[in-house]
């Protein structure tokens, strides 16, 4: 394969080319590193690029392949990892000053599985500080930009992974989703993002934001790639007590099937009406229409408690945040700041000065909210009732899944918004996750798929939700819809930036249009 084209291929295509000996992992990895070098100055999708480590891993896979060792499907396909996952040999900052320069002594289970499966790790992607935000503008190291329009955000918190994949800096990436941080950036950048069933992917080594909601998952350009990556990182991990001890759902098989004949699709009444951009609604309704034409049966379902989901989330999440982030205190690792004008500061004063200097405003806001919600005398009213609403959300899902096999909604209420537009209005920012949060509260899996462009020429995300541990249903329905949409739009959606850069580095082959 000639150089520049390599970055346009899906992971599945690269996998085939690698297996057929048409290219090498070193070649593929170098192509992506080159593209990062030329484009990431503008996009800032990465916080850290590990070219030597990625190339060494690539060469190792090439050697093993040459030696005839059996290798996994994605062996040799490079991957980008959100900088919230611990990586030996690469810094893990969580987008925060408080962890600047910290290099973990251990790998997250997801990272260990990527390495074991032979995926070279290109580097660590940008995110809102500790994954708190919907635009990456809360990253202490500066925002990432959306390859569709660099004046706009790629969404967040996983905007770095989404931007990297959309702009072909990486064929696939790992994100984490606590309230929509994989799916909303997927919607805003025209990529596929999956939040697996809670417990489906190990949380060990993923710096916790809200432990009962966090879940890592794939960020890709195709449904099949997402399934292939999901298969690599999923499955039981004894190091995570909340990991599901059962065989993972057959996601790859489902992604290859893609048949919606007779499938009951539930349109959630509460997700997608008021406040949703007209173009977002138009693309959503169009996609539902395509599914119907393909043989799916569409029903409307109601989940009344979803109206309280956002409020519930903003009690549960900050409460867990306030406790999870207590450990960043300058005593053992990370930043250590000293109070001004204190001769011999006490440990307590150093802790306070460090947390003041090391955390950004959004993190502080959530720590304060959570500390308040857990306080004696307020616990029952806030954290306690939030947990009760959470069980109502789960019950609404149960009832909806009696009527439908999968539920659907727009992923995010708008297309990519401008940098700075919502930065001073936390509530407007929080509303970005209104459709994605219910899945995190109930633990059910969700997938966002690009559903075409809105009236503003920016991508729209289509969300699918399935019952606990039925992640395969998402892949089956999404693969069918993906095929229908490719027909409808005449090929994959490519951000303008891809064209710009390609003119810089040379001609590029026409992306393969799948029929």
């Amino acid at each position, binding site marked *: 394969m000639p150089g520049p084209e390599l970055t346009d291929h899906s992971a599945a295509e690269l996998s085939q080319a690698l297996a057929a000996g048409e290219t090498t992992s070193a070649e593929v990895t170098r192509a992506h590193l080159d593209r990062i070098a030329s484009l990431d100055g503008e996009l800032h999708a990465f916080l850290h690029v590990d070219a030597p480590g990625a190339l060494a891993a690539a060469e190792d896979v090439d050697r093993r392949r040459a030696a005839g060792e059996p290798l996994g499907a994605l062996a040799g396909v490079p991957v980008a990892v959100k900088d919230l996952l611990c990586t030996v040999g690469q810094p*893990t900052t969580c987008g925060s000053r408080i962890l600047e320069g910290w290099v973990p002594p251990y790998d997250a289970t997801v990272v260990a599985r990527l390495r074991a499966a032979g995926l070279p790790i290109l580097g660590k992607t940008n995110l809102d500080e500790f994954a708190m935000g919907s635009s990456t503008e809360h990253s202490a190291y500066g925002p990432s930009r959306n390859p569709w329009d660099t004046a706009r955000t790629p969404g967040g918190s996983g905007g770095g992974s989404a931007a990297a994949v959309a702009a072909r800096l990486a064929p696939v990436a790992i994100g984490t989703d606590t309230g929509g941080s994989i799916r909303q950036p997927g919607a805003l950048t025209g990529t596929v993002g999956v939040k697996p069933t809670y417990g489906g992917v190990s949380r060990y080594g993923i*710096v916790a934001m809200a432990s009962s909601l966090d879940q890592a998952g794939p960020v890709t350009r195709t449904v099949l790639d997402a399934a292939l990556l999901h298969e690599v990182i999923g499955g039981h991990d004894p190091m995570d007590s909340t990991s599901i001890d059962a065989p993972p759902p057959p996601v790859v098989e489902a992604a290859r099937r893609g048949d919606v004949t007779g499938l009951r699709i539930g349109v959630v009444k509460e997700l997608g009406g008021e406040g949703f951009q007209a173009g977002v609604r138009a693309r959503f309704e169009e996609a539902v229409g395509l599914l119907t034409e393909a043989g799916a049966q569409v029903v409307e379902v109601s989940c009344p408690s979803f109206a309280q989901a956002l409020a519930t989330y903003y009690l549960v999440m900050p409460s867990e945040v306030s406790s999870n982030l207590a450990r960043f205190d300058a005593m053992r690792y990370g930043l250590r700041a000293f109070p001004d004008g204190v001769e011999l500061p006490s*440990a307590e004063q150093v*802790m306070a000065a460090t947390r003041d200097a090391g955390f950004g405003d959004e993190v502080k806001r959530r720590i304060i909210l959570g500390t308040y919600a857990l306080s004696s005398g307020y616990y029952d009213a806030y954290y306690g009732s939030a947990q009760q609403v959470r069980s109502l959300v789960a019950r609404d899902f149960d009832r909806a899944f009696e009527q439908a096999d999968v539920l659907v909604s727009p992923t995010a209420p708008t297309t990519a918004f401008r940098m700075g537009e919502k930065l001073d209005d936390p509530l407007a920012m929080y509303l970005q996750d209104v459709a994605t949060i219910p899945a995190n509260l109930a633990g059910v899996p969700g997938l966002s798929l690009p559903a075409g462009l809105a009236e503003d020429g920016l991508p729209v995300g289509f969300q699918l939700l399935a019952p606990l541990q039925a992640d395969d249903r998402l892949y089956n329905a999404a693969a069918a819809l993906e095929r229908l949409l490719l027909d409808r739009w005449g090929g994959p959606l490519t951000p303008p930036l891809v064209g710009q850069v390609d003119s810089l580095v040379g001609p590029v082959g026409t992306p393969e249009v799948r029929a």
Partner: protein
Amino acid sequence: MTTVEVGLVPFEEALTRYEPVMGLEVHVELSTATKMFCGCPALFGGEPNTHVCPVCLGLPGSLPVVNGAAVESAIRIGLALNCRIAEVCRFARKNYFYPDMPKNYQISQYDEPIAFDGWTEVEVEGPDGPERYRVEIERAHMEEDTGKSLHVGGSTGRIHGAEYSLLDYNRAGIPLIEIVTRPIAVPGDRAPAVARAYVQQLRDLVLALGVSDARMDQGSLRADVNLSLRPVGTAALGTRSETKNVNSFRSVERAVRFEVSRHAGILDAGGRVVQETRHFHEDTGTTSPGREKSDAEDYRYFPDPDLAPVAPSREWVDALRATLPELPAERRRRLQAEWGFSDLEMRDTAGAGAVDLVAATVAAGSSAQTARKWWLSELARRANEQAVELSALKITPEDVARIQALVDAGAINDKLARQVFDGVLAGEGSPDEVVAARGLAVVSDEGALTEAVDRAIEANPDVAAKIRDGKVAAAGALIGAVMKEMRGQADAARVRELILARLT
């Protein structure tokens, strides 16, 4: 708030106006192979920060996994304390900032302890013999220990005034069981002894269960004494103080006495007791204020989302119940009955730490009384001289039983037996080897004995005359003379027979 120094009221006098109510919180460090939530060894000591991993250091991203062996130990302790065992219980996070706590929260249990609603009975000495008191157990719950801070510089060894502090996380994450009593209201003059007996009983119990080494000196058993006073005849509880880390049984007793005196002094002066943490000082037997613990301290407990609930099946709990060893109090009662000891004899035996030694000696063939005699007199004296525990003496219960068997067989007498003890303790071998090597066997050569008897009669004509006149009791003097000549190696009973045969 400034605390006014007021006088102490003598303990006995305080009890004329106030009655104490105690609450005891005992932390037991479990001797599981690994820590509560990770695979690090749960060992005391070690080079600082060598028994640590991402989990017990609380590194970002690390997650806890419950140690099943610790849950098992917790259930067994709960069962031994007659507790109910939760069908489902959760871990909770106790949030507060302290440098020796890696995550700045401690994984503990809050409103869902693994064991609750239990009781145990303790025995203390009253003027009319042993008295028994029931201590109600509110709960026993699981938690992780913190690391240790070493404060360098400054005079107090505490964090305030120190120049710098060193942190050792080897202890962080070692499993702890915290056992909390309900308020204990016993007659005031019994309170110190009841507190001590309770802590002692918990120590014996966890040792019998084999779940902890329960060393107060190493901190693997730590007692907090909560105490309040109320005017005699009233029901409402007074304000309590919490005296932390009282590190010996005797200190438990002294801490109760001191706090009664201190509280009474404050109340007599019309003052108000401050709810606070206090430190106990071993050297003076007094307490001093630690950090003030007001109701404002808010740990913001909430269920730990990283851990699944613990749901011990009833089958498992029943299986554990079936394997509970005989508990120390029951065992003592059974052994006392079997051995026919008086209350006093049994208490002395237990007090000397000799119950197991006597039991093993009896098992090796001795009678209970002779076993008790050797361990509590001859051997206790030697242990005392060497300043070691009885069980640390270099002699086994089997050796003691063998020496007694030699006495019973007439091969040696009690006096020779003491020399055999000397030999065994000096490492000269088994009792039989010592007897042989030291030539301690009783002389049973009748000819030699008869000659010695004749010489004794000849040398003591007055005594011989008395015996001939029927004063048999006088024979003792002649026996003594013969034994002296035979250098103790004669069977006294046989000597007596020979003397009487000659003279009557």
